[in-house]
């Protein structure tokens, strides 16, 4: 099956290891991810400033995907997925907005939004289109029962209506279900849906940092070995900002991408998935004492 593959800014240029893991999984299941040089920023940064600009910037990406003749545009960033889903739905349903944006698109790039496709996050896409049974069948490496704390990320879940309510925004489960297939143990922890604070990092860094700190403490208290995310923003917040001196904690929480865990179970090695060997070993090699926790921060290289 062919789908348009939308990277957005941060996966393309910051968290390539996430991109790599997603590409390997897609190959495994015969999903052809089609790149396009016309895919640029999703438009999210314009939302607080000018609604029309926001819609038009998002629409240029949707239009580029429509021209590829596919049924889906698949994204791996929570925020890009939410932006593209929201705009796609609005322009399909609201004729006035569609006419307005099509006028902007026509005058600027000579194109038109037609509303022929659906937007999906990669995780949702494999959950629904490949399905848990097929994924389970493809697993060749049973992983260690590593305790994994899933972080879903706000824009994977909400606003729920733009995602057709496929997930329960209060008690989400899709990432748990996928990870559980591999042998790892998804753990519940306090305030699991707490926001990473990434959106206001540039406005109020102290507040963002204290949101990150609290999350790491909750993950640690639940005795999780790693924190798994499926959004590049969340990854930067919990992985990179974990090193910030304002986060005065005496433990470390490795942060990895959910598809990297799936990738290991599907038989790919650490290098193919852009994982640090030390973190991959947690999942693959016999562990000595239960106390032997990784000292590594950020599972990406």
């Amino acid at each position, binding site marked *: 099956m062919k789908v348009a593959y939308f990277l957005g800014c941060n996966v393309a240029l910051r968290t390539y290891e996430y991109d790599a893991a997603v590409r390997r999984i897609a190959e495994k299941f015969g999903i052809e991810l089609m790149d396009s040089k*016309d895919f640029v920023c999703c438009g999210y940064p314009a939302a607080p*400033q000018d*609604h029309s600009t926001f819609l038009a*910037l998002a629409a240029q990406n949707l239009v580029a995907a429509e021209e590829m003749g596919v049924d889906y545009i698949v994204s791996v960033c929570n925020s890009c997925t939410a932006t593209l889903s929201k705009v796609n739905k609005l322009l399909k349903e609201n004729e006035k907005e569609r006419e307005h944006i099509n006028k902007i698109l026509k005058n600027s790039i000579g194109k038109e939004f037609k509303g022929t496709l659906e937007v999906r996050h990669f995780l949702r896409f494999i959950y629904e289109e490949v399905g848990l049974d097929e994924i389970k069948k493809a697993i060749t490496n049973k992983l260690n029962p590593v305790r994994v704390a899933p972080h879903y990320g706000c824009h994977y879940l909400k606003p729920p209506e733009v995602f057709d309510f496929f997930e329960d925004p209060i008690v989400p489960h899709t990432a748990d279900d996928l990870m559980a297939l591999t042998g790892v143990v998804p753990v519940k922890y306090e305030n699991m849906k707490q926001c990473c*604070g990434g*959106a206001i990092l540039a*406005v*109020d860094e102290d507040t963002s940092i204290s949101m990150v700190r*609290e999350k790491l403490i909750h993950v640690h208290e639940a005795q999780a070995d790693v924190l798994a995310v499926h959004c590049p923003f969340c990854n930067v917040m919990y992985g990179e900002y974990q090193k910030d001196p304002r986060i005065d904690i005496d433990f470390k929480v490795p942060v990895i991408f959910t598809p990297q865990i799936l990738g290991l179970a599907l038989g790919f090695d650490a290098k193919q998935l852009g994982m640090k060997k030390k973190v991959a070993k947690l999942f693959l090699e016999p562990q000595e004492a239960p106390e032997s926790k990784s000292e590594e921060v950020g599972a990406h290289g």
Partner: protein
Amino acid sequence: MESSQTTDEKKAHIEAVELDPNFKFEISKESGGENITSCFQCGTCVAVCPVAAKNPEYDPRKIIWMALLGLRDEVLSSKAIWLCSTCYSCYVRCPQNVKITSVMSAIQNIASREGHVHPSYEAGLEMLKKTGRTVELSEFENQKREKLNCPPIEENALATIKILDETGILKKKEKNKKKGEEG
């Protein structure tokens, strides 16, 4: 006891003339702001807000209240309206379906038009105009990508520039800046 009031206490009084009763309608006409008048001030939003939990300067219920009251200038020029992390926690919990996250975005749009946009967002659009993305591309990124067996990324800002020119967002900003400098 008027005379014993401190200056701060006096300032806390609101003169009726400073209120703009149309402000709430202005917001409700903006995309996303439609439901603002449904708010009955229950405070659920602030109770579930992760930003308010960390920064007492941020109180979404209070922003809505001030907007409903018509404190137009105070709301539009406040730093608080830029503190929403768009987490949608309030959005899914509000009993009145106010859709605060969208209302906040509508208020931000009005504030932006009047030259109050937070500088970090402005920088974001400037960057888009240069590269089409919010992150700059160099040789380094594509070398890293190649090692991970991922195809290279090309810079392609052309369509973005054309769209930004068509909506006039950057020009409007220039105008606002000039207005601000003059006045």
